């Protein structure tokens, strides 16, 4: 599964994207965040406040309880500040 990171999430993790093999039992966006946080200091730092993290599956905004099954690309980023 392809993961993409933007803005300070990208800076904290130290890379813009990566391919990961998910362990069994990770069903939702929130569970994916919890698992990523356990992968190292940089991830723990990026996701230290999960409430502010936004996610998109295949380029559509999703909520923490959205199922990730079938996702091609999941992105994590801070609240948007465009416009």
């Amino acid at each position, binding site marked *: 599964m392809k993961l993409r990171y933007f*803005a300070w999430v990208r800076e904290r993790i130290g890379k813009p994207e990566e391919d990961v093999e998910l362990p069994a039992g990770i069903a939702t966006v929130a569970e994916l965040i919890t698992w990523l946080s356990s992968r190292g200091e940089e991830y723990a730092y990026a996701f230290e406040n999960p409430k502010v993290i936004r996610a*998109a599956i295949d380029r559509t905004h999703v909520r923490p309880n959205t199922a990730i099954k079938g996702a091609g690309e999941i*992105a994590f*980023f801070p609240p*948007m*500040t*465009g*416009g």
Partner: protein
Amino acid sequence: MTVPATVRIQREPFDVAAETKTLTRGRTDAGAVVTFTGICRGAEGDESIAALTLEHYPGMAEAEIERHVAEATQRWPLLGVTVIHRYGRIVPGEDIVMVVTVSSHREAAFAAAEFLMDYLKTRAPFWKQVEKAGEKTWVDAKATDDAAAERWAAPGRDAAE
């Protein structure tokens, strides 16, 4: 009838007057044109700003704005819409974003332009980094922008949609 709708994400500057002419040229059903231009300011409070750098999520940014443009054309009787959002490094005085809406009547043109700007601020995947006194920091999302976007939400609508 399909409403002419253009969404562009680009590094280059844009020309609001030229985009407006493209939408209104040769037609006589347009009675109202509203344009919004967002400009990089040179200061925030007492601190001067050297530049903004806008990061975006290519592909999603276009798709997300196109979805909201389509929603605007369903909610209001529009005759044309153009949205252009720049990315990359932008210095004070330069334009960042523009919206043009064309309608027969002013109410629809104003409402659609405000709706699109409120959504761009809160839903389009762009992130601003500001350079002040040699330091780069990410701009925090504003609660006032979320509140502005909320006023357009249909009752019972999923906030994450």
